[in-house]
């Protein structure tokens, strides 16, 4: 069932309008191409600015640089006291641990909600949905006090440990929806053969749920990679900065002096997200379409 709804979203649409005039169709395409270009223009301009010679950046509104020069990347990489290599590494560690935490902890909880029967299940499920509704600002300050007391500020722990406690309820919800679409006959048959819930979770549910696990993993990665607020609050030592904090420090320290380096590092920070967009676009779009995700 889940497969059916998913593919109906990505399949080409039924041609409701086969008798559109050729002229109308040309106009629609012209409009769409113009809109696409307008949407992408700032991004392409930044990419092109990052490889231009420094003195040419503001002189031109065109997209094609007169010569390609990677000096901005070198300048930007070493533009702060700590190199962007360090920031990138820090971001990567946090993002990968977050992905693992989200996938493991959320799938455990989702399996319990979707399949197991136990006292209070519906109550906890309602609580879980409730946590999706409240803005994080409400828990922000006491959480900060807690992590401060634990001595975790300036480490990645406040950003990563909550994910191993399934703090991203959204992903639980996403997985519950998917798990419910997997035929129960499969685990019932396994149960008759004497499989316990752990084996069913591990041998049946997870292997059949790779699409939703991948969707959750990719969104976890992108959102963590782009996260600014969490690192801003918990990471104060430049050696622990993520790439987003590095960029922010770059903006503040070099306001107008080194735009080339800033654009180069900005472009670099978008590369992983762009990579996921390029290769997993279908999965991302299905994820949004089926659950009505926010971003």
């Amino acid at each position, binding site marked *: 069932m889940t497969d059916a709804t998913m593919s109906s979203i990505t399949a080409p649409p039924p041609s409701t309008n086969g008798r559109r005039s050729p002229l109308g169709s040309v106009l629609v395409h012209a409009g769409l191409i113009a809109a696409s270009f307008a949407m992408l223009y700032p991004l392409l301009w930044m990419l092109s600015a990052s490889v231009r010679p420094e003195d040419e950046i503001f002189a031109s509104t065109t997209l094609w640089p007169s010569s390609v020069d990677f000096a901005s990347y070198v300048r930007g990489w070493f533009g702060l006291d700590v190199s962007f290599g360090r920031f990138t590494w820090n971001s990567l560690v946090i993002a990968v641990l977050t992905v693992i935490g989200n996938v493991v902890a959320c799938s455990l909880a989702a399996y319990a909600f979707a399949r197991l*029967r136990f006292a209070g299940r519906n109550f906890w499920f309602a609580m879980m949905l409730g946590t999706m509704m409240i803005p994080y600002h*409400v828990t922000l300050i006491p*959480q900060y006090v*807690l992590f401060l007391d634990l001595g975790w500020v300036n480490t990645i722990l406040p950003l990563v440990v909550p994910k191993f406690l399934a703090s991203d309820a959204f992903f639980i919800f996403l997985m519950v929806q998917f798990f419910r679409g997997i035929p129960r006959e499969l685990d019932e048959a396994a149960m008759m053969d004497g499989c316990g819930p752990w084996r069913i979770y591990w041998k049946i549910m997870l292997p059949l749920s790779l699409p939703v696990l991948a969707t959750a993993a990719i969104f976890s990665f992108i959102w963590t990679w782009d996260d600014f607020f969490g690192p801003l609050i918990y990471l104060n030592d430049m050696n622990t900065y993520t790439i987003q904090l590095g960029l922010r420090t770059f903006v503040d320290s070099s306001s107008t002096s080194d735009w080339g380096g800033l654009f180069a590092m900005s472009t670099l920070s978008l590369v992983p997200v762009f990579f996921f967009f390029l290769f997993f676009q279908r999965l991302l779009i299905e994820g949004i379409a089926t659950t009505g995700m926010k*971003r």
Partner: protein
Amino acid sequence: MAAVQDSAVAIGAGARGRPAAQGRLAALWTNHGAGYMFLLPWLVGFFGLTLGPAVASLYLSFTSFDLIRSPEWVGTANYVRIATADPKFAASLKVTFLYVVLSVPFKLAFALFVAILLDRGVKGLTVYRAIFYLPSLLGGSVAIAVLWRQLFAGDGLINSLLAQFGIEGPSWISHPDYSIWTLVVLSVWQFGSPMIIFLAGLRQIPTDMYEAASLDGASKFRQFYKITLPLLTPVIFFNAVVQTIEAFKAFTPAFIISGGTGGPINSTLFYTLYLYQEAFGNFRMGYASALAWILVLIIGLFTAFSFLTSRYWVHYDD
């Protein structure tokens, strides 16, 4: 598949009136120990990171607390000050409402318009859809906020483009009348994800309804007005609620574009930015907690209002 769903519903609803074989299965499924084992990480998080902190935050909102000395009970003083004697609260609320009211309708209208255009069997749908979705995926990052800061600067790209038409533009980001608009444009630029949800919704509308309407001589405009729009209202409602809540919570672009100040003259002082300044700039943790609860109240009231009014305009087909 329907049978699977039925049994799922039945299991959720309890074991009443079920055939004996299914009753045995239900007994097999029942496993309190395993249930709580699987739920354990989430339960720890729920109590330790959500419920506990939420209660603590409510308590802190009635105290004066600077992280160094222990919280001191001040009764409702924080709330009273917020309501009566805090011009920055009023300013941030005004900016945030303005941002919500300007960005959400534009973003949704754009998303709906493009979705309808694409749904009409345009060739290359997947390519256009991908291009329009890309900004939604990238938009939350600092890099894009940095880019925006340059685009709308006095000597930025937008003004360079305008100069080619002989127009001399202001410094958009440092003018209090225009700065909020740069953030609105940034939000509208990310219309891709509501567009995808609209596209999925449009796909659910049966084509034979349009065929029947065509046979009856209904014009394209009338078909849109009488079929597409009413059947799409649940999706419009969903997108509106989600986007509004997101807009209330927006933080990063305003922080980067204003350099963390919310300036010029508080014109980009989003509510969340003010809350951040109070908590982590001035270390008024009690006051910031009160601000957080007021945000919850505002979002809650808005959501309740949306759901209450929804039955007058949202069409549920059942």
